[in-house]
């Protein structure tokens, strides 16, 4: 103990640091205890550091039931982070509740109420603009935010769908759920899981996104960040420049420019260059007003499903004047049913998502045009792009793939009630967008892909029907009430801009639709 009296102020400081940071040995603790008992200056410094430690823990939200940094136990060493310790809240609560058998319900609300009060005490750093499906909640509280409400520093969970946020300095974020993220300040966000697309104006330069293994500092740009379930991060720059620093490696930061992307490995933290993926991030709630949509609308379509994101995330919006809105039937994946499309958003039909319109569009004139954009991941046998059905039998059209051959195929019910079939002899190329059109002009049935006619046969026109159900991306049951039982004919990919017209389009008009390109595409056809 005599040695303790000989400690320099610096050594005493180190001892305090060891105790505060949780790494002091029993001997060091004893040394400090002796100093605290004998030296008022050390005692004052120790208490000041305890107060600052508490202030920092409060400031960064690790008090009130949140995670708290401690040294890892031997069993947990090697983990990237220290897991949250909610048990520190719940243990005494559960103990008390079971012991006293009173006030159980009230007692269990204690931590949530404290967290809510803590969150409410923070200053606003942004605002929730809008939602599409899902809900945005402050983590571990009952607070669910509505559009127009303030965002404050804290942790958030987006259950699904999309949320548009605006932070101070006009930084716009489109979050895709399921996502877990923390807003540290108006200029800093930590994305633990999920996707975001950021648009940072000049006044927001320096906005920083952290992922489990990287820090991304914006230099005035549009970029996307994706943190997958295995904690791998991807950063895609659509325009401008960002600086990416791996948190695990001590290498120089990487500067990513327009149309560049990188992946940060979850295990090693190493950076690997990858191709920019425009299809990965949905960057706007609104479908762009483009020459393509104007051309379609000029033809007064019977139905026009632009695949716009709806407020509830599950309505298939008809943008024609007829408002034949449908529903999106969710499939197997807990992911938003809308993904980037040819123009704006598209319907994600992989994993058995599909669109269903119970009172779907019909051609009452006997003339018909179908026009759409499709993207296939795989050529599922006899996969369905669009299928119509009535309780009495087939509807006016079915568009999809031809068996295992995989070329486009179309069937229409002609004026005599016979089914006329047509198919493209070439398998549909995968992994790219195709414009597809079907035209029944009263003489012929023609199939177009990429603006070119790929098949044609004689056809008197389509049988006028007053009602039929429509499925987009799936085959309907014979009673038209839903997808066929046990069907394997779902479309594996995306479908966009599906329109039904009551009149035939001319070949030149189809060519023009095919040639309409989306804005800001740099790497995809």
């Amino acid at each position, binding site marked *: 103990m005599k040695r303790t009296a000989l400690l320099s102020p610096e050594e005493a400081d180190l001892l*305090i640091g060891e105790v505060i940071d949780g790494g002091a040995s029993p001997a060091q603790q004893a040394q400090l205890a002796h100093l605290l008992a004998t030296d008022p200056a050390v005692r004052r410094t120790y208490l000041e*550091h305890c*107060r600052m430690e508490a202030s*920092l823990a409060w400031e960064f939200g690790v008090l009130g039931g949140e995670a708290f940094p401690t040294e890892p136990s031997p069993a947990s060493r090697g983990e990237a982070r220290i897991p949250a310790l909610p048990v520190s809240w719940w243990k005494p609560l559960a103990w008390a509740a079971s012991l006293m058998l009173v006030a159980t319900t*009230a007692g269990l609300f204690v931590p949530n109420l404290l967290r809510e009060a803590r969150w409410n005490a923070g200053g606003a750093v942004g605002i929730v603009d809008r939602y599409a499906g899902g809900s945005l909640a402050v983590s571990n509280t009952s607070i669910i935010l509505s559009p127009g409400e303030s965002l404050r520093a804290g942790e958030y969970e987006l259950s699904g769908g999309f949320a548009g946020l605006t932070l101070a300095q006009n930084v716009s974020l489109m979050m895709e759920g399921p996502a877990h993220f923390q807003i*540290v300040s108006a200029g800093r966000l930590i994305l633990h899981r999920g996707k975001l697309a950021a648009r940072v104006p000049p006044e927001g330069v320096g906005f920083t996104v952290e992922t489990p293994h990287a820090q991304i500092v914006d230099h005035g740009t549009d970029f996307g960040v994706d943190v997958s379930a295995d904690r791998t991060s991807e950063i895609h720059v659509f325009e401008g420049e960002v600086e990416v620093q791996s948190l695990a490696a001590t290498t120089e930061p990487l500067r990513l420019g327009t149309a560049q992307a990188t992946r940060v490995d979850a295990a090693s933290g190493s950076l690997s260059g990858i191709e920019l993926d425009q299809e990965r991030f949905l960057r706007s709630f609104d479908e762009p007003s483009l020459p393509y949509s104007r051309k379609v609308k000029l033809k007064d379509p019977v139905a026009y499903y632009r695949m716009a994101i709806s407020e509830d995330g599950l309505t298939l919006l008809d943008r024609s004047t007829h408002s034949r809105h449908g529903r999106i039937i969710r499939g197997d994946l807990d992911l938003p049913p809308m993904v980037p499309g040819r123009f704006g958003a598209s319907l994600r039909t992989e994993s058995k998502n599909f669109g269903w319109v119970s009172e779907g569009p019909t051609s009452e004139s006997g003339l018909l045009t179908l026009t759409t954009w499709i993207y296939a991941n795989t050529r599922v046998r006899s996969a369905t792009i669009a299928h119509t059905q009535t309780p009495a039998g087939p509807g006016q059209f079915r568009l999809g793939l031809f068996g295992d051959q995989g070329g486009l195929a179309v069937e229409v019910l002609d004026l005599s009630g016979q089914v006329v079939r047509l198919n493209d002899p070439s398998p549909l190329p995968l992994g790219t967008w195709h414009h597809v059109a079907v035209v029944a002009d009263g003489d012929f049935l023609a199939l177009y892909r990429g603006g070119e006619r790929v098949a044609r046969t004689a056809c008197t026109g389509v049988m006028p029907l007053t009602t039929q159900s429509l499925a987009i991306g799936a085959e309907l049951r014979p009673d038209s009430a839903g997808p066929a039982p046990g069907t394997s004919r779902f479309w594996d990919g995306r479908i966009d801009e599906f329109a039904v017209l009551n009149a035939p389009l001319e070949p030149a008009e189809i060519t023009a639709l095919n040639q309409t390109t989306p804005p800001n595409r740099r790497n995809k056809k």
Partner: protein
Amino acid sequence: MPAPSAEFIQLITSHQSRLYAYTLSLLGDRQQAQDVMQETNLILWEKSDQFRPGSNFAAWMLKIAYFQVMTHRRRRRKLEQFVFDDNLLENLAAESSAATDWQERQQAALQACLEKLPERQREIVHRRYSEGYSIRKLAGQLGAAAPAIKQTLFRARSNLIKCVQFRLQEGIS
């Protein structure tokens, strides 16, 4: 048990930092300090109807916390030896309690002071407190030895203490 009022919840919330500082200073162990802090919160909640509005909440809270620290020490005495003896504990408790209500003013000053930290210190503070990285992990990430990280953290806290004290003395927040 009647549910505590909104005012009471606000009082508990606004004293969390002070409560943690108090239990940490008496126990010298972060995890134990957090556990006792939560136990104290529960008792405060249960006894909320005994608190007289307008009286000194901090003094009442710290009195309960002191009792909980002593209970905790008694419970754990069989498992470990506490290096802070009862006399030292009383001294620390008295000095720690003597501080006036400081949380709101200190937090406002702290936010400004964090921005003024040297970049390296600010980064380490952020990663340590916001991200929850251990000293060991921080050392690995930054290619530095663990003692160097601890030293930087200590210096960062020292700088913040000086800066906050200056701002409070000068009436800047």
